């Protein structure tokens, strides 16, 4: 594949333009791509590998370690905390609500470990925003409003 000229390479290259070309920028680089594109595609990771000079196997190895990078093409992840303290306060209802509203939408409902919001349980993390003491209604609305372009 002629990576250097591919459209993905151009996009990633523009995103990383001002980042120093060094290994220590790998995590910030992956974040930029994931936030802008919604997920990390194979081609995008190849491009990151070329641009930062990190072997592609290691880019995949790092990216796959982190749960927040497990988004897939056309499926925006939303997170419902189902850990102990939220489970005590009705997390299952939130998950059911999220799954219902995700039907026929490009959304993947994921269970999350403790989000550090147990004083406001049950909590969810949708579109980069925390929902505190969330009701199934609020989760429904938030899932419907998730951006996916």
């Amino acid at each position, binding site marked *: 594949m002629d990576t250097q000229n591919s459209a993905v390479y151009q996009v990633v290259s523009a995103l990383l333009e001002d980042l120093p070309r*060094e290994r220590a*920028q790998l*995590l910030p680089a992956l974040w930029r791509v994931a936030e802008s594109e919604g997920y990390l595609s194979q081609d995008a990771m190849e491009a990151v590998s070329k641009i930062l000079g990190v072997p592609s196997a290691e880019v995949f190895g*790092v990216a796959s370690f982190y*749960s927040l990078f497990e988004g897939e093409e056309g499926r925006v992840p939303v997170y419902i905390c189902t850990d102990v303290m939220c489970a005590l306060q009705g997390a299952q209802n939130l998950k059911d609500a999220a799954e219902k509203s995700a039907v026929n939408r490009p959304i993947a409902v994921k269970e999350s470990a403790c989000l550090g919001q147990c*004083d406001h349980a049950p909590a969810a993390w949708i579109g980069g925003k925390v929902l505190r003491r969330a009701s199934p209604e609020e989760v429904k609305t938030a899932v419907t409003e998730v951006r996916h372009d």
Partner: protein
Amino acid sequence: MTEIRRLLPETGIMSGPTSVERLTERGFERAMARAMLMTPSDIIAEVSQSGIKGRGGAAFPTGLKWSMVSQAPGAQKYVVMNADESELGTFKDRVLLEQDPLGPLSGLVIAAHAVGARKAFCYIRGEYREVEQVLAAAIETLRRVGLVGPDTVEVEIRRGAGAYIAGEETALFNSIEGMRPEPRVKPPFPTNKGLWGSPTLIQNVETLANVAVLFAHDVEWFKAYGTKDTPGTKLVALSGHIHRPGVYEVPFGTPVADILNAPELGGSVAGTGRLGAVLLGGAAGTFLNAAEVQNTLLDYPSLSKVGASIGSGAMMVFDDTVDLTWVLTKMARFFAEESCGQCVPCRIGTRRILEIAESGNLWSRTQDLRELGQAMRDASICGLGQTAPLALLSALDRPELRHHD
């Protein structure tokens, strides 16, 4: 029994959390000015005299750590604020950073000065996106008044991406360096070989906030609260079956029962109103039964009598209807998923515990679990594997906590 506010800003404070006025109002400007006029060894001596211990879980004496980093050979040194906060039931660093981010940051600037570091990192968990924005604004404020920058210390935020293990100090270094966040074998310790092999001081958010309030005042002021063994105050995070969940600041030595019951603190047990158990210190913490809750103080010597520690300061409250077998199974799954898999005792051990939990045999296979737990404690590389069996074993030691229906 009242709540203290030293690490947390006074209620009704007028200035914005990231404003220049806040620096003055909270005494952080004074704290940094005072520290900058002191020699590094005088700063470290003051931190040692204050008796501050790490608030991230291990309670290592902070002054000792600073002197180790300061004495370690190496021209390049780093300081790191650990804001990864991913322990079950733990949210005190989030509340601290939301309400008063300039405190921990002032502590970070003082720490850099004391150990001779020109570069600092704040590592914050990816799910704390809104908190990260507050932190960034606070760093900008310090930059504007010249306390952060090329002539003092550069501060950079690093965002985690959803990995509990990345909060372990050496895994966190690997994460910053662009490697997989797997813990390193210790020794060498971070004080000698941390980020890029250089001496590195890593502290919890709350520890750094303690440093800031110490230098805003003095050792005598600092020691006015707390015990002889552990001076100062502690943030506790109350959640679960409690009327007033939230973060409260209390002196070390406060009776655990008061934290749960005082009207201005926990405000008493919710749910059925009858206490079943408290899980103290996070997923790697200890279960206390109702009698132990009545008879212990929030301090290391008192808690060690019942085999417990303060850990992160999480206090998860369960009423008498909660089936702890369910809680233990959930926690077993968490550890099995979050183990980085590098070493055998932890990779296999966390799986075995989960299998036993899922097969419903937790309470009948106590001997096997104890032996497994011992092996994990003895042979795991890092704190995750070493402490993953602790909460489970503490429950097995208290068979009265078993739920029968």
